[in-house]
């Protein structure tokens, strides 16, 4: 590896080290391996316990067995493969997990009975028996495994029902997610009642009978299973409209879907297949997780379940998360909560008690790190379960009584949500679902609007707001008095923008007396979590239609007015924000290590610098000694090679060489800017290296001026001197500026200077502080002849003060006229060195330009004491010894030779020219 590659290599290594360090600090704990096996489990169910069904299941085995088991029950339309992630996650946390496809779904046989106690619940009960036979599962007794049941939606209801219906009480804990309490209320909600509502719990629903059919959601759910012709459990020879549904379920659904009303038998069927029917028998700790973005199973469903379970005196914990059937499946946070629940109640180890608190997440709108900011608020418990009522803040509404029209056929209809579509349409994330709130449309003539004053203070709505409305009928002979209305609660910004939180709507049905008497109804608006900023208004809108529901088709006119306290009863649940966590220790340690290393590195660097001076006392009076100086760049020509020379006090040394001879590189090494490959430069005995203090005795101008273009000449020089940190009176700024002789121009920005002016200023800068060694690179470049003349004068006289000047040039005449000594360089090597006079006119050597060269050479050789006569073109060189040049000329002329020119032999020029010529 060459030197050049080292820095890049070092960068890569260091970056890898950083990445490794960051990784180490944030390293994930090693994930235990999970084994799984697919099994087909035969169960027998039915009212008479005689119908064999084969369930397709997968069993996940954790690393350590025997382990407590968790039965994960699928949602509607899900198969066991949809549960793989949840199962693997639980298995990694140390649970044995059994997932399966419910009867009628996936590869399991049987027909869908909609969580019937006779079918699905019996199936699950026998799955627990299967778990009791597995050696990997921890057993509490014979045929009694340690088992928790969890599930979402359809599976969540099954988990509750299994806990209630399992005769042997083998279920030890339940986690039920986004599910219903009473399917007849969930699918046919009626959110109003003429009797006063008990608003003690935040998510209070009404659960009135004879509700409004949730047409679109029901269709979405049932439709998939209905149209599934050809799947297992369906006789391909006799296609029916019932798909994979059991006949009585199918009949009930068909009746509701066609009439929009449920008869008592249907309501009984739905109730029997709901957790509400077994709630009083559930005696195990239950975690209820419900979604804040859920128009299918709203917060009121979990609220009802929680209230029923609380009567059994069992630990119940309620969590609301910002998702749901409209807003995305539970994420890692909920998974963590479920796992913590099971860890405490199943593992009975040292897992912390998850408690029976209540937490809800508030979703903000600022997107940081790609996800909306959420804040979790934790209360000690779910209000209303243990005698502590939910605080309800009154927000007064105003608005006159308003007539609303139900159009014939129930169309066109207002829009609140797009059930099942909203999620897909908007990307399925909880972020997108919050945008769904802006889709709501109320049709004029069909809606009554009541608005509050702008709020003085921020208001956090957590649950279902209650209000009282007075509904009146406009007497009409054909009017039956049956009234279907939809209430929504908007958040209205100061600019009038409306948001329907949760895209949720509360449908209700009222039977009005036909005589036109108005009726007061107490309405429970949909359960939402919504921070309403100060200055915003709340707006209650009552419409006659909603696209998502089976609307009344008979035309009618109703008046809607505020009643009772003419206000909203907004649930407020205070608690601590649980978003706060302590400062994690590892990054803090990391920060400390970084700071410590930085101090260490700085100290080491300072110590190394302190010990770096290298002085040779014998050379203390020699301005400059260069020994064996070499600078080579890998892959390029060697710029300077084995250069050695010496400069003494009072000299003006010329560094002569053609362009590219290595002069500037030498001077850069002299200034400590370039590091020699070999050899050294000593200035007054001190070795030159970057930052060597002896450099302060050198004033330099090398390869162009360097000024801050935005500052004037004066400012540049004074700031430069200030940078040296030396006392101002040592600078002789005024004298130096006069040498530059720029006149008024010194007060102009340097950016406006010509090259010559910049050069003069740079030379003045080099002379600041009257340095002992003045180094000037091509100082006369760009100057005009009178200025050149002056410059020579300055240099000579400056050297005469006992200081030393080094000048580089590529012009021979320049060196000849300004320097006392010269060093000739070519291609990085020293060619000649010595006094200019010696080199220019060494000894008695002379050169004659003649017409007859051979004759001239003969004549010269015949003269007394001459030697070394050589001919070269029309030139004859000779060392005349004691003979004078004039005598030699006379001898030549006497011999009849025409002498055009006679002079000292210019060895320097010869050498220089030869070099340049051989170069070309």
């Amino acid at each position: 590896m060459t030197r050049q590659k080292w820095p890049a290599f070092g960068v890569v290594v260091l970056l890898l080290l950083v990445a490794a360090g960051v990784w180490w600090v944030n390293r994930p704990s090693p994930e235990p391996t999970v084994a799984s096996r697919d099994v087909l489990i035969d169960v027998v169910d039915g009212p008479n316990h005689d119908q064999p069904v084969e369930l397709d299941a997968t069993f996940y085995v954790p690393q350590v067995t025997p382990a407590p088991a968790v039965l994960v029950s699928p949602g509607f339309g899900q198969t066991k493969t949809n549960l793989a992630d949840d199962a693997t996650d639980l298995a990694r946390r140390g649970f044995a997990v059994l997932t399966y496809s419910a009867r009628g779904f996936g590869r399991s046989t049987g027909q869908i009975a909609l969580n019937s106690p006779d079918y699905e619940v019996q199936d699950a009960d026998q799955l627990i028996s299967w778990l009791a036979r597995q050696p990997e599962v921890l057993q509490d007794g014979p045929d009694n495994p340690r088992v928790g049941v969890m599930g979402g939606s359809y599976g969540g209801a099954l988990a509750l029902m299994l806990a209630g219906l399992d005769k042997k009480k083998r279920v030890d804990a339940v986690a039920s997610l986004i599910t219903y309490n009473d399917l007849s209320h969930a699918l046919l909600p009626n959110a109003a009642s003429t009797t006063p509502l008990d608003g003690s719990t935040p998510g209070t629903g009404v659960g009135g009978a004879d509700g409004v059919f949730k047409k679109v959601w029901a269709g979405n759910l049932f439709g998939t299973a209905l149209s599934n012709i050809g799947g297992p459990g369906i006789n391909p020879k006799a296609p029916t409209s019932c798909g994979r549904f059991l006949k009585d379920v199918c009949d009930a659904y068909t009746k509701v879907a066609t009439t929009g009303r449920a008869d008592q038998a249907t309501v009984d069927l739905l109730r029997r297949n709901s957790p509400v029917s077994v709630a009083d028998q559930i005696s195990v700790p239950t975690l209820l997780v419900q979604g804040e973005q859920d128009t299918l199973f709203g917060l009121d469903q979990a609220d009802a379940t929680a209230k029923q379970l609380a009567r059994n005196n069992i630990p119940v914990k309620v969590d609301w998360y910002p998702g749901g059937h409209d807003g995305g499946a539970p994420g890692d946070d909920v998974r963590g909560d479920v796992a913590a629940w099971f860890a405490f109640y199943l593992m009975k180890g040292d897992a912390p008690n998850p408690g029976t608190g209540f937490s809800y997440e508030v979703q903000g709108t600022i997107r940081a790190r790609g996800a909306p900011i959420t804040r979790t608020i934790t209360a000690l418990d779910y209000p209303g379960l243990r005698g502590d009522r939910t605080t309800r803040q009154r927000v007064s509404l105003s608005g006159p009584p308003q007539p609303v029209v139900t159009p014939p056929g129930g169309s066109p209809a207002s829009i609140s949500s797009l059930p099942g579509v909203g999620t897909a349409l908007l990307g399925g994330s909880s972020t997108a679902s919050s945008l769904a709130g802006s889709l709501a449309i109320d049709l004029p003539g069909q809606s009554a609007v009541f608005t509050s004053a702008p709020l003085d203070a921020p208001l956090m709505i957590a649950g279902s707001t209650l209000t009282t409305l007075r509904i009146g009928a406009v007497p009409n002979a054909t009017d039956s008095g049956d009234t279907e209305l939809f209430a929504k609660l908007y958040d209205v910004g100061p600019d009038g923008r409306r948001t329907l939180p949760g895209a949720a709507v509360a449908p209700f049905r009222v039977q009005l007396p036909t005589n036109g008497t108005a009726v007061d109804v107490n309405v429970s608006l949909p359960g939402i979590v919504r921070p309403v900023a100060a200055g915003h208004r709340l707006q209650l809108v009552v419409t006659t239609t909603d696209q998502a529901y089976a609307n009344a088709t008979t035309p009618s006119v109703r008046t809607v007015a505020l009643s009772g306290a003419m206000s909203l009863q907004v649930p407020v649940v205070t608690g601590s924000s649980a978003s706060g966590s302590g400062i994690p220790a590892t990054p803090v340690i990391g920060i400390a290590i970084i700071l410590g290393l930085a101090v260490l590195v700085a100290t080491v660097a300072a110590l190394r610098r302190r010990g770096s001076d290298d002085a040779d006392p014998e050379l203390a009076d020699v301005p400059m000694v260069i020994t064996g100086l070499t600078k080579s760049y890998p892959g390029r020509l060697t710029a300077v090679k084995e250069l050695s020379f010496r400069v003494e006090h009072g000299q003006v040394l010329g560094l002569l060489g053609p362009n590219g001879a290595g002069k500037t590189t030498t001077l850069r090494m002299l200034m400590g800017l370039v590091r020699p490959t070999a050899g050294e430069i000593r200035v007054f005995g001190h070795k030159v290296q970057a930052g060597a203090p002896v450099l302060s005795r050198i004033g330099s101008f090398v390869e162009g001026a360097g000024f801050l273009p935005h500052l004037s000449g004066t400012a540049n020089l004074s700031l430069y001197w200030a940078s040296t940190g030396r006392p101002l009176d040592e600078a002789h700024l005024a004298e130096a500026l006069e040498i530059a002789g720029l006149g008024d121009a010194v007060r102009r920005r340097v950016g406006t200077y010509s090259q010559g002016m910049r050069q003069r200023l740079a030379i003045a800068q080099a002379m600041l502080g009257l340095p002992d060694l003045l180094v000037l690179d091509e100082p006369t470049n760009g100057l005009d002849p009178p200025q050149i003349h002056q410059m020579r004068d300055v240099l000579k006289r400056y050297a005469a003060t006992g200081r030393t000047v080094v000048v580089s040039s590529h012009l021979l005449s320049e060196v000849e006229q300004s320097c006392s000594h010269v060093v000739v360089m070519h291609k990085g090597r020293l060619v000649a060195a010595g006094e200019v006079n010696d080199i220019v006119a060494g000894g008695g050597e002379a050169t004659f330009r003649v017409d007859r060269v051979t004759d001239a050479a003969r004549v010269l050789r015949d003269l007394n004491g001459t030697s070394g006569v050589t001919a070269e073109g029309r030139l004859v060189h000779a060392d005349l010894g004691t003979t004078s040049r004039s005598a030699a000329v006379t001898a030549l002329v006497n011999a009849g030779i025409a002498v055009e020119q006679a002079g000292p032999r210019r060895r320097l020029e010869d050498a220089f020219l030869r070099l340049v010529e051989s170069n070309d």
Partner: protein
Amino acid sequence: MTDEHGVHTDPAAIAELVAVAESEHAQVAADGSVAGYRASRTLRLGVELRRQLRRRRTQFAVAFLGVLPFLLLIAFKAAPSSNSGSRSASSAFVDLATSSGLNFAIFALFASASFLLVVVIALFFGDTIASEASWSSLKYLLAIPVPRGRLLRQKAVVSGILSLIGLVVLPAMALVVGLIWYGSGDLISTTGESLPFGTGLARLALAVVYLAVYLVWIAGLALLLSVSTDAPLGAVGGAVLVSIVSQILDSITALGDLRDYLPSHYATAWSDLLSADVDWGDMTRGAFSSLAYGAIFMALAARRFARKDITS
């Protein structure tokens, strides 16, 4: 050369200089330096600050950060209040911006943190050595001699001071503007919490502190590029480019946990300061990540600068 009519050296000036030079011969210290020279007094912070503060780019950058809140204010005042249904996350954010002076200042920070402040910090740090190199003045500073490590340190410290000035000017001006136009109300978070003015002010200050720490990695990177090139724009642009690429990668959710190692991953962690109960986790991790990257970049910059042949 009409331009240089006044340019000539008076012969008397030469005589004067020579006279001074003859009469004065500087003393020499043991380390070979001229008496009066001390490495620790070279390029003092005040001098470097004067050099930088007189530059247009410094004045413009700081002035722009001071004016930005007014531009935001004008934008808010001029924006037509639309009733259109499309309500994006950012519009809700804008709603909050005008609810109090503190919210306005926080909004100004939000609006500028991911790009503008990165550019400003990259400008101050990336330009500092490279511009000297491009003016050829670097070699004369080094020949003073200012020891290389000291030169880099002094320049980095001054760049840091200028960056801090910029970082404080923006929210401070935004706060002043916000207080005048939107009052000293509570700081409202989008999750509906409100913090009283005093707490809100402290949070704003902490946000600035976090941003200052977070931007260390940009500073380090820009400094490394600054000593690696003679083109100031290359150093500034390079640092900004890396930050943008990191932000783009950070927005690819498919990268999962790998994104934690991106230096810009914790850029907005300071938004955790806006709730009553502060989650310090991401900010601590962000500070560590940024300091780690920053320390490495700065160490590389120092190493590279110490060994580099100055040829500009």
